[in-house]
């Protein structure tokens, strides 16, 4: 070696070269990721909803994704404003999604 220059390897990204990446994706991260994906799904279903007015299947899919997205959004709001202690964050994900679907399906079956 001519000098004391050391070549560092550029930082590893999260999960890069890691065979155990999947199994260690925690629920909070899924909550974040799936909320973003459901936002894109809402864009698609909303367009379909406008085009195919009152098609039952489109209505249902749109309501399902909106409920899912809203439940996860509610989670962030509750945590942001300290309305729920952060130690319940895992239960909050399942709880809010379940609550959202119960409310949504109740409304759905009372209408149709």
């Amino acid at each position, binding site marked *: *070696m001519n000098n004391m220059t*050391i*070549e*560092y*390897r*550029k*930082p*590893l*990204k*999260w*999960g*890069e*070269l*890691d*065979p*155990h*990446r*999947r*199994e*260690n994706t*925690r*629920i*909070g*991260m899924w*909550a*974040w990721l799936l909320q973003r994906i459901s936002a*894109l799904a809402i*864009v698609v279903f*909303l*367009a379909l909803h*406008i*085009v*195919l*007015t009152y098609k039952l299947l489109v209505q249902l899919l749109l309501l399902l994704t909106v409920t899912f997205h809203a439940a996860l959004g509610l*989670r*962030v709001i509750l*945590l*942001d*404003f*300290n309305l729920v202690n*952060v*130690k319940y*964050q895992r239960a909050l994900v399942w709880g809010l999604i379940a609550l959202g679907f119960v409310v949504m399906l109740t409304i759905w079956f009372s209408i149709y």
Partner: protein
Amino acid sequence: MTQEKTKREVKIFRYDPENPDGGHFDSFVLEIPDEATTTILDVLLRLQREQDPSIAFRFACRVNMCGSCAMVVNGSEALACKTNVSHIPPGEITLRPLNHFPVIRDLVVDMEPFFKKYEEMLPFYEPKEDYSEPALIRPDSQEREDIGLATECIACGCCVSSCTMAHYHAEYAGPAALNRAFTLLADSRDGLFQPRLERALESCYNCRTEFNCTEVCPKDISGTRAIKYIQRLALKHRTPEPEPARVVVPEAPPLLVAALDRRTFLRQLGVGVVGVASALVVGSIATATTVGPTLAKASKQWVPVSALENIKAGDVTTVMMNYETKNRLYTQQFSVPVMVSRTGSDIVCFNSSCTHLGCVVKWEALSGRFHCACHGGNFDREGSVIAGPPPRPLDRYAFKVDSGHLFVEVG
């Protein structure tokens, strides 16, 4: 205690700065006498002693106090000295250096960026005024409870490594630095509240509430909780208070602001393009379906109304006519009454919409008139206005008779 000898495959990330290759994994097999009393650090020390003396890793205290031996153990950040082999499900053990830090060699990373971010948050206590010791925060006060064990941070870097946002936002201070800022911001004796808050607020909104930092912290500190606390402070402290210059703010290291490099620019451009494209798609579909039908020239079509024999001469017969129109993706179904007046061989087909405001008019055989119930419009048998507000006679459809069947033209 049952002691079971097990053989474990240990895969260790290797990177040699003198022979840089981007990194690869070396596999070792080690017999472990008792997994419950063997830490990952023990495994590394044994491998270094028995199999490959060139494995590089950091450690110092061996009792979870110094934070030197943080690494990614099977996809999850942990202290090597705190993780027992028995904590890891059977199978291979993969050891990787921390994410988001330059790798110097094998499992050793350069923590310089970590401490730079730490310094940005002014991580030292500067009293507001000349407090006489001892501390003024009572152990049972709300303030002390808020801060809790967040002061226990050993700056091991696990949280920053687990945080996906630390990679995507170069200027993000990360959970550890913000947690440090939180412990001081929540401290009522803190003399640097305002400058510290301004710095913390610069980057605390990069948190996406993923809780990765909370999940991996070896000291069970919640970075997310600290960051949320700082975000809430912004609600109460919107305008910077003019502080009397009683405390001299020490020369603070400048905030790291990421320059707009090519990659960042392209990413932002990509996000912009995707946004504009999806807005255009949704917008054009919405426009086409709402405005389209009024602009499009409706195609004309012949709709069968009735067999001619069902329409009696000398009378006005009302027949329901069903048809649908298509406009691009949108199909609309109509079911409208047509009034057919037949005198001998003469046939007239009236549109049943009143020419006033479009209500459906009805034939009243007794008075021999078409009557609109809405505003009292009356038309005679020829469709001319007799009374009421309608501005013009009833509209007529074009019609034809084809093999004994009556058709009218709509559209």
